């Protein structure tokens, strides 16, 4: 194999592949990328078996063939290469030679046939979607997904189609975020769970410049295509909890308030919560919400904000982080908190727009 390539072009696709390469290196081959040179193009592939990426770019191919090479070392070498032109060649013995100007590197690759094959998909199934809508939906849910690896079925975002609507749900067992949008969407027979890592990879993709994005789902994978790049994300094989059951109905104590007021006040008051607890007490009375926190070691904090509330007085505790994370993503000036009692789930949502719902469980402080 032998090809010549522009440094900046090569660097760009190597950088993308880098993000996917398995960092923990459970299998040595997964620290490598697969480069295939064919008909005036090179194709770069990386995978951690959960997320796989395939990218391509133009190159002057003198001799077709393929190699695997350590992704990080190659990226670092190309980044520091002295000239714009990079020349890469390989012999049958697995020795790879990288030349740029007067610099020359000899690298040992791993056998090509050890590299996992790229998941199969049907190009015809790919369906163009609106990237902004998808990006927004991800941002408003993914933060609530669980990070506890033992609960793999909630380690991601649940996606399902409901008529003309697309719904995404994420939960960590303490809170739940749900968003619903009407949007064009590829065929999806039943709900699927997208893993966190895949979601974050997808988000990076959505953020990187203009260009149409197409999606498709197979039984095990979600396929994302943008320009010449294809990302395949393996779906989580599990049962997502019955989220509809935990969305409370009949929470009659409604508190209307300014989103920014609550967010900034929580930021201040939670400064004096316990180290990890971040527990903040919500004291609610007519027209008034008093937030307070105390830490016997440091002291206590208290702040009052004006709210729209006409019901009975009550006290309830919440994890301030859970509240702040949701308040940070709701795009509305006014929000509503709907409560039942101090032990039942509360709802946080926009006062005006429908389509986004955040359910959070109180804390006993």
């Amino acid at each position, binding site marked *: 194999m032998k090809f010549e390539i522009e440094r900046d072009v090569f660097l760009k696709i190597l950088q993308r592949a880098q993000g996917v390469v398995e960092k923990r290196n459970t299998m040595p081959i997964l620290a490598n990328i697969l480069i295939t040179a064919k008909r005036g193009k090179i194709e770069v592939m990386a995978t951690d078996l959960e997320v796989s990426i395939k990218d391509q770019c133009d190159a002057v191919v003198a001799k077709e063939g393929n190699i695997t090479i350590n992704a990080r070392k190659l990226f670092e070498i190309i980044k520091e290469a002295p000239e714009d032109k990079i020349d890469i060649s390989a012999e049958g013995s697995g020795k790879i030679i990288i030349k740029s100007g007067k610099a020359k590197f000899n690298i040992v690759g791993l056998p090509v046939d050890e590299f996992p094959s790229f998941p199969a998909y049907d190009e015809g199934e790919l369906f163009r979607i609106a990237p902004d809508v998808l990006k927004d939906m991800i941002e408003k849910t993914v933060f609530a997904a*669980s*990070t*506890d690896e*033992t*609960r793999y079925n*909630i380690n991601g975002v649940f996606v399902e189609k409901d008529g003309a609507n697309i719904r995404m749900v994420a*939960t*960590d*067992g*303490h*809170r*739940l975020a749900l968003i619903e949008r009407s949007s064009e969407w590829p065929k999806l027979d039943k709900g699927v769970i997208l893993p966190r890592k895949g979601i974050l990879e997808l988000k990076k993709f959505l953020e990187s410049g203009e260009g149409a994005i197409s999606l498709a789902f197979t039984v095990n994978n979600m396929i994302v295509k943008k320009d010449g790049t294809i990302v395949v994300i393996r779906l989580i094989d599990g049962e997502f*909890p019955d989220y509809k059951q*935990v969305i409370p109905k009949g929470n009659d104590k409604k508190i209307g308030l300014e989103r920014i007021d609550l967010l900034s006040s929580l930021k201040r008051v939670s400064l004096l919560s*316990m*180290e*990890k*607890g971040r*527990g903040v007490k919500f004291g609610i009375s007519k027209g008034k919400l008093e937030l307070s926190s105390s*830490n*016997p*070691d440091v002291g206590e904090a208290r702040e009052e904000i004006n709210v729209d509330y006409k019901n009975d007085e009550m006290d309830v*505790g919440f*994890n301030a982080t859970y509240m702040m994370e949701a308040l940070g993503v709701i795009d509305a000036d006014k929000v509503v908190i709907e409560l039942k009692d101090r*032990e039942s*789930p509360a709802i946080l949502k926009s006062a005006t727009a429908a389509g986004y719902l955040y*359910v*959070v*469980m*109180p*804390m*006993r*402080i």
Partner: protein
Amino acid sequence: MSYHHSVLQCNKIKIMPESLAIKISAGEVVERPASVVKELVENSIDAKATDISVYIHDGGRKLIRVIDNGEGMTRDDAVVAFERHATSKLLKEEDLYSIHTMGFRGEALPSIASVSEIVLTTKITGEITGSMVKVKGGIIEEVRDAGCADGTTVEARDIFFNTPARLKFMRSVATETGHIADTITRLALAYPAIRFRLFNNGSAMLKSSVKADLRIRIADVFGRDFLKDIIPLEAGNGVLNIHGFIAMPETAYSTTKGLFIYVNNRWIRDRGINHAITNGYRNVLGQGKYPLVVLFITIAPQNVDVNVHPTKCEVRFKSPKSVYELVSRAIEAVLAPSHVSFLKSYERKVLTAEVREGAVNYNNASHNSSAVPLIDEGIEGGLQASQQGLEETVAYTKELFFRELEVIGQLWQEYLLCEREGEFYIIDQHAAAERSAFEKLKGDYYLNRRVSSQLLLLPQKIELSLQEKEAIESSMEAITDLGFDIEPFGGNTFIVRAVPEILSGIDCRGLIKELLDDLVSSEMSFRIEGRLDAILMRIACHSVIRGKRILSHEERKALVIRLSQVDFAGNCPHGRPVIKAISKFEIEKMFKRR
């Protein structure tokens, strides 16, 4: 028809012949060659031998020969010894409750004889001739006079030759040899005054010193290097006493192989005591790590039942709780800062003899103080003035120690190098930061005595065994105090509705299971505290600097000073050391100046 049937069935039951009964019970006593070694050596010990040699071939399958210089037996006794329940040690029922000898069931010799070929030669000191008895498969084949040395020699060949099932299940030669070596090690530790030798296929595996004490015996068995890392341990109230040696946490194993527990000088296995030991080490040793501990528990025979199992390696205490507390607290007290090696030499110079005496009183006081699970020495109320004085002294010397440490540099961005008074110290900066963060968190937690809990949006179901169910029902209060909210959900299913806030984000079901397992095995809730420590450690680990980082001179100094303010035993919460000292002597030796 049915009448006939039942008559027929009745006739099926017969008393089995004695020879078969012995073979079956032999299975209980003689599990493997190592059990033969154990029984024979114990007999030698009971015969007041001071020198015991054991020879084995092929992992004991081919040959086990035990030679002692004990009292020996008359010919009549030697013959009777092969009859079942023949024992010189237990003659009436009351004796069973005050057992002082090793063997007592009268099962050992006949059991071994029933599954092998035995030649016993014995001579009573002072007699001119000895006797030889040869037994094969339980049948006496030959009895005659023999010339031999004082004492008894028992040679067992071809063990399990007549029980093919047992033979088939024997492990490899190496495994069986290992078991025998373990057996001798256990006995050698229990009887330091007796000289033990073990020869495997003719070459010596173990040779212990003559008339040793426990310390020397530990060196015999584990190697001389261990001596500098072990700390003596002694505690008790007269009725229940413990003594022994415990190793610094650096010597840790991932199995319980380093735990040598003896009750009234008899080696035993006891999950409760293993637990008490790990609980004592919990702040200096990570989860799943076990230290090296040689622990002797002395307890009045009527307060312990050793006749639980034919191999006698399990016991039942009348009051497991008091044993647990004594062991756990004694270890914790010994590992407390004043005993830690890197400070030891320094404090020896500073602390007066009077203060040392105080330290002993302090330990005793904390043993008797209360039945409440110990919280933290630092905040346990009701300390007498003199003990507080001691604490201050210790704190003072520790602070002085760290203040006098001069930071001379940083190595590989990971270690701090310090010097003071002819000693060179290396501090692991991550471990140091982690340790001090942990102590801070722990202090906060116990000071507040308040557990916020997070209610669960998706309550988690947990399936429990019957034992676990009982445990959870009886300790519901303690569990609720910790911020859990667990409700029965019919059958053996329980629902977790809330978890301590500090645990959120970690799967609590495994933790609850482990907790209940501990409750079941140790019959007390000590470990809840231990688990919370583990959680606090995890938080501490994540809250501090990790990996390489260049620290400014001020940061370095501040980190070292922070160490002086925590109550720690020279290790990070995961059990890795925080600080290590290298003496000038060692460095000079490195460069051949000495």
